[in-house]
């Protein structure tokens, strides 16, 4: 594990947030399997240290952009279970009043500019948030989450070029989980991902995405430097998704083996690793952490129940929010 943070409260919050993400996803998956959730969704389980390590280095006013695999980022940036489950189920009390669903989920009030169902689609948005920060002389930072697969989108190179030319306070966070859908990263990415950022003059780091402290330490440093105008930066975070590409991707041995999955789960799980660290460093006891887990599970269960019972938006909402400042678009 990488260098320590100064107080155990921060550590416990990171642990807590990782467990919250895992618990959220387990419940979401269950909703899918029991046919209670409309559509499909993409699980973040296994990648918790990335979202949490990064978001714990940010302030609320800092912005993030998220992906189709966005529940983890949303929780990590401060969202509540209740509004998240409501959104997943298309209910009125969801963060997006049920209009966005899993692929557009976001707690906007905490600086989350949204999950995005276009792979790579948010790279410009994050860069633009950083542009605003510079234009309006704020020192907010923007973090752009995206997958290894998204590095194939030309948009990334366009915005990295501008961010580098204009020294924008943006951090590109590539979550390399080894796959884009059903294809291994090496089959779709030539050369080196970090070298691509470096070729634009952007400082790039590769980091173990299963080590929440390593991720957090690096991010904390880069965020501080970005605030001073030393950005942009690029991080490649090596991680793994435990589930299929989406909840419906059950039989996946044709593209990756059960052994590989087992190896990551058994030997590199970010929560197990961090828990071991907390206990061995004497920052928490197993009982403390079990209690925390149980509390989170109860929270999730209550939120799921609430969301299942919550009401759908009224049909009259269908043409609201097409345009800002206009109640109904088709009046």
């Amino acid at each position, binding site marked *: 594990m990488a260098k320590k943070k100064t107080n155990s409260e921060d550590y416990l919050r990171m642990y807590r947030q990782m467990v919250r993400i895992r618990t959220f996803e387990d419940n979401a998956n269950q909703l899918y399997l029991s046919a209670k959730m409309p559509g499909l969704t993409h699980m973040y389980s296994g990648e918790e240290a990335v979202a949490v390590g990064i978001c714990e280095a940010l302030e609320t006013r800092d912005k993030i952009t998220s992906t189709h695999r966005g529940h983890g980022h949303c929780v990590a940036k401060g969202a509540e279970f209740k509004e998240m489950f409501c959104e997943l189920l*298309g209910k009125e009390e969801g963060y*997006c009043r049920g209009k966005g669903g899993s692929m557009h989920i976001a707690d906007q009030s905490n600086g989350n500019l949204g999950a995005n169902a276009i792979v790579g689609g948010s790279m410009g948005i994050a860069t633009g948030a950083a542009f605003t920060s510079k234009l309006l002389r704020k020192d907010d930072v923007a973090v752009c989450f995206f997958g290894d697969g998204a590095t*194939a989108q030309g948009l990334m190179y366009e915005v990295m070029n501008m961010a580098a030319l204009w020294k924008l306070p943006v951090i590109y966070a590539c979550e390399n989980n080894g796959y884009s*859908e*059903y294809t291994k990263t090496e089959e779709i990415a030539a050369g080196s991902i970090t070298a691509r950022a470096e070729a634009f003059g952007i400082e790039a780091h590769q980091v173990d995405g299963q080590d929440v402290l390593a991720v957090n330490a690096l991010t904390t440093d880069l965020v501080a430097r970005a605030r001073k105008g030393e950005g942009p930066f690029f991080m490649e975070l090596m991680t793994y998704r435990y589930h299929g590409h989406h909840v419906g991707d059950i039989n996946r041995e044709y593209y990756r083996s059960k052994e590989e999955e087992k190896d990551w789960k058994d030997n590199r799980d970010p929560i197990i690793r961090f828990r071991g660290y907390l206990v061995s460093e004497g920052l928490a006891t197993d009982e403390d952490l079990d209690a925390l887990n149980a509390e989170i599970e109860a929270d999730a269960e209550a939120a799921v129940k609430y969301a299942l019972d919550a009401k759908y938006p009224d049909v009259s909402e269908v043409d609201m929010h097409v345009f800002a400042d206009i109640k109904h678009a088709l009046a």
Partner: protein
Amino acid sequence: MREITLSQAVNEALAEEMRRDETVFIIGEDVAEAGTPFKVLSGLVEEFGTGRVVDTPISEPGFMGLAVGAAMTGSRPVVDLMFGDFIFLIMDQLCNQAAKTHYMSGGKLSVPLVLRTNMGATRRSAAQHSQSLHALVAHIPGLKVAMPSSAYEAKGLMKTAIRDNNPVVIFEDKLMYQDKAPVPEEEFLIPFGEANIKRAGTDITLIGTSSMVQVCEKAAEILAAEGVSAEVIDPRTIVPLDEAALLASARKTSRVIVVDEGHQSFGVTAEIASRINEKAFYHLDAPVLRMGALDVPIPFSPALEDITVPTPEGVAEKARLLVRGEMIDAA
């Protein structure tokens, strides 16, 4: 006659054409081993190899551009665009390059390629995975646009598309992949620009595209029970458009509704309605009515999504108004 699914029909069409012509290849994301997320292409890579069923990185503009160049030099690419919504990413290569090359070169170069993609809402996939964007493509001279309404059309139009020397865009309805229809074992092609009269009638003409053909057929059943005889026509290709068939029907029934799943405003229904108004005006007893998707981004929530698209009941209701002469709006 045997019945096969729309998905199998597309698969057969591709396999037959790839056997016939070694310059035909398929390119897109997860088209090979995965056979696309909708499993439409399963088995093709086993027969034709990865040299002709080519998995790409997530680079829609890139592989679309590559296909244009391949088509200009002797290949016949079939581009697989996973969701119709991604067509926004490839518009430049499709509309500025593929569509215009033959014309700009004074007929010297041609671009025989097929872009296979999909359309259709009500899968709970939200605003970026549910659009029906064929109207945009139809507006650009140099592109042909096919919209199969069943497995039969899906096969026959695909084979014609592959042999056409122009860029052809085929929009398949995502919700119809598992729908079965009778499809002959023997080889057949469906010529472009020939509408199909799905059901003959005398009181009103219902023109539908893609899955809206089924919606119109169901509406016709409802109406039949009430003693109203509806003719249902499927144009099959909207570019070229079989104007003669549509006009003949309009002249016969003197009442027309055009139903399409794209957004209504500035969409396909406007063009078809306008042509009928222009060229059969004095035969019409009532204005040509249009029914498209609501002019709203497709919402995720099932409570909202279902009311965005035309339904058989909705079509029947409008038809009744027309037949009864109750189009007060038009007064």
